[in-house]
Every structure is written in C-alpha cells, then in structure tokens.
C-alpha cells in the first residue's frame, strides 16, 4: 500500500515542474526528484499533474482575438506618433462606459502658448463655507477658480520639470511641450497647474495639490465622463496617495470626452530627456 502523501512542501514543489522541461536538473529541486523516484504514488501524481497541465496550457491560449484589433492598435499608435490631429474620428478602442475608476488616457499637447490658467492649491474646508469633502462642491469651486484665473505664461516641461512632490499625474500623457505653473494659493494651499491642449484644441488645466479627501478614497483614476459639467466647463478629480488631481476642461461633456477618451489608452508619463526635477515645494 502506498504511503499517503502528507509532505506539503513536496506536494507544492512538484506543481512547479513544467511539462517538456528538464526542471529536475535544477539542483534546488533535487530533493523533489528523489522523492518522486522513491514514491510510486508521488510519481503517479506527478504524471497526472503533467497531463492536466498540458490541457490547461492549451486552454490558456484558447482565446478568440477580436476582429480589427490590429487596426485599432495601429490607429492608436499612429495618433500617438503624430500627436494632435487624427483623421479618424472614432476611438481606436471600444469605449467602456463606466464611471468607476478605470484606465484611461488623458492626452495633452501644448500646441501654442495659450492663455494658461494658473490654479492654486485645493483647500480642506476649514471655515465650512463650502463642504469641500463632497466631490461636487469641490469641483464647483475648482471650476470657479478656473474661470476667474487670468494668469498667463508657464514653464515648458522640456526646460524644467515641476516640483517632484506635485508631479503631473501618471494618468496623464503629455508631450514635451506641456507647461506648468506654480500656484501659491489654490483655495488655500499650494499647487501646480499644468496647462494642456487636447488633439482637437480643447483647453484644459490639471491641478495637482497635496490634499487628501476621504470622499475620493476609492477614486484613483480620471473618469471618461466629467463628474461635473456647468457653464461650459467640465471637471473631474481623483486621488492617489496624498495627491489630489483636479482636471478642468473648457467645454461641455462632449469636449471633455474627446479630450479624455483618445484612441489608445494608456497611462504613461514621458519625461523629457535630460530634464531634472525642481526642488520640492
């Protein structure tokens, strides 16, 4: 009668052996090889594991590839390569209509020196005039600030990066030509404003400030639809660790959508070669 296998380390170790490979040649698995040699029931078990592994490995690759995927991927890459204009008016990827945090690309390219709007930091409501713990109130204040800010100018990202503690979000893809401006007082706290222009000329500003809002605890990515759209301005916000990001786009929901939901989706921050971060604010 075969001895029941109770040695869990051995049982777990034989699971890592790959069919078609000489994994027993691994000196760290020599004890496993010896155990299999000594115990016929273990050898039988290994044989069955290998058969099921073969089945599973084949099944893992059994996935239908959606039609047109290659074309969509190439279209997204072409848009990325060319930057602003795209003759193709539709998304390269199927749009996924969800408000929950999801992976989206926010495209930004500074085409010209636009009337940049500097936005200051975001403030925790100390005086309780507005309940900024609520997202709508927060965004309403941000839009008001955006409308009233007439500051112009900015530093090109290629010349110097902003303070490292208020770096542009990893969820925003920008070109080397993006500009930034420090804000001494954005509703009470310091911030950095990034002035952005979308592929179709949409104007937007991303405000980054060190602030943590409980209401945004689970909102860690920008939304493809604005959380608030009023008076021709649309906005969203999200939180990552101790940084609050507020994106304001000059336009209605449609302009916000074309700004945010660009072909290709990814999240990458390209640091200009040779650029160095400024001292932390």
């Amino acid at each position, binding site marked *: 009668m075969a001895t029941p296998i109770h040695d869990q*380390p051995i*049982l*777990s*170790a034989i*699971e*890592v052996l*790959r069919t078609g*490979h000489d*994994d027993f040649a*691994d000196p*760290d698995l020599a004890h496993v090889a010896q155990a299999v040699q000594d115990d016929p029931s273990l050898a*039988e*078990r290994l044989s*069955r*594991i290998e*058969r*099921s*592994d073969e*089945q*599973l*490995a084949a*099944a*893992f*690759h*059994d*996935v239908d*590839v*959606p039609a047109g*995927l*290659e074309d*969509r*991927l*190439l*279209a*997204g*890459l*072409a848009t*990325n*390569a*060319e930057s602003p204009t795209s003759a193709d008016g539709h998304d*390269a*990827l*199927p749009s*996924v209509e969800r408000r*929950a*945090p*999801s*992976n989206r690309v926010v495209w930004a390219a500074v085409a010209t020196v636009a009337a940049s709007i500097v936005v200051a930091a975001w403030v925790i409501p100390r005086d309780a005039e507005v309940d900024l713990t609520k997202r709508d109130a927060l965004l309403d204040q941000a839009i008001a600030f955006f409308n009233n800010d007439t500051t112009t100018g900015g530093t090109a990202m290629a010349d110097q990066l902003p303070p490292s503690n208020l770096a542009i979000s990893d969820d925003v893809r920008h070109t080397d030509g993006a500009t930034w401006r420090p804000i001494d007082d954005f509703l009470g706290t310091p911030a950095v404003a990034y002035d952005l222009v979308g592929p179709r000329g949409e104007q937007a500003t991303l405000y980054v400030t060190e602030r943590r809002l409980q209401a945004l605890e*689970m909102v*860690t*990515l920008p939304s493809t639809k604005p959380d608030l759209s009023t008076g021709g301005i649309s906005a969203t916000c999200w939180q*990552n660790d101790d940084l609050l990001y507020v994106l304001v786009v000059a336009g209605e929901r449609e302009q916000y959508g074309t700004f945010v939901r660009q072909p*290709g*989706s*990814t*999240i*990458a921050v*390209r640091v200009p070669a040779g650029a160095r971060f400024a001292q932390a604010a």
Partner: protein
Amino acid sequence: MPDPSLSNEIAGLVRTHHEELYRYAFRLAGNQPDAEDLVQQTFLVAQQKLGQVRDASCTRSWLFTVLRNHFLKNLRKQQRVVAGSEEIEFDSLPDTVPDQLDIDAEALQLALDELPADYRAVVVMFYFEDCSYKEIASQLEIAIGTVMSRLWRAKRHLRARLAPLETADAGDKPENDDKPENNVPQKRPIPQEHTA
C-alpha cells in the same frame, strides 16, 4: 495598411505579437475592453522604449512583462477586489488530481477570475509564458516559496473547478458499464457561493 507615420519596427511588432498579447491580457483581465486596453498600453510603451530592449530575442518576453506590470499596477490603483477571491478557502480544496479535466474557455476564465490577482498572475505566467518558478519569483519580486505556494493553490483551484463532476479515482473504473451516456463526464456545476 499601417499608417506611414508609424515606424516599420513598431508596426511589425504589433503584427507579430498583438494576438498573443491579447490572449495573455484576456486571461489576466477577464474581459475584452480591459484586455484591449492593456495591449494598447503595452504597445504605446513599446513605441517609446523599444530602444531599451538590447536583445531582439527578448522582445516578446519584454512585452509580456510590460503588460503584466500594467495589469498589476492598474489593479492596485483601482483597489479592485476580485469577486469571491477572499472567499476561496485554499486549504479546503480537494487535493486529488483528476485523470482528465473538462475545460471550456468560459469555465477556465471564470475559475481564473475567482483567483486573487497575485495568484492569477503566477498561474498565467506558468501556463501561458511557460515560466519557471524562479523566473516567476524574479519577475514578480516574490520569494520562491511564495511562488510554489501560490502556484499549488491556484492549480488546485483550477483543477477543482474544471474537474468532471464525477471523477474516477486513479485506478478505479466502472465495470460492465456499456451505456455511453454514463461514460460522459459531467461538468461540475459552478456553485453560487464559493465555499472551497
């Protein structure tokens, strides 16, 4: 035809690898939109950083790594909890290894989706990329013992979910059973609540 603004290199990369990358992404993410997102992300990174890959023979492996890292990073950002992942009692899973598995693509994906993301990454690397346990440990920056444990548990879970409903023990076969329908393995029903 690829856009002329794209380099031949990147267009060729897409042509060569997009299907396999998509399949890999689908097994990780579990749905088409997320899988496409992951593949697009990967190629966008490749468009920027392909020059960093010194050895062309490593390109495929590099692409898989980029995709997998995006998957794990996105999950951490979204703080997504896979439905049922916290309910899998791995230690209660049957330890038997069926003679044969009854696999269909949907059932496999359902079983994968039930696994915690970190377990899923390990088992997908094992079956899809054919990675050794040491390669998995290195890529995911986890201990070898952790790889072994997760792989063992994940495989047990997959085998339990994909085993035929009536699985014969090793060496036991029905006698004098001439009815064909009795020899067709039935799929184990997917329980509404995962208890093991």
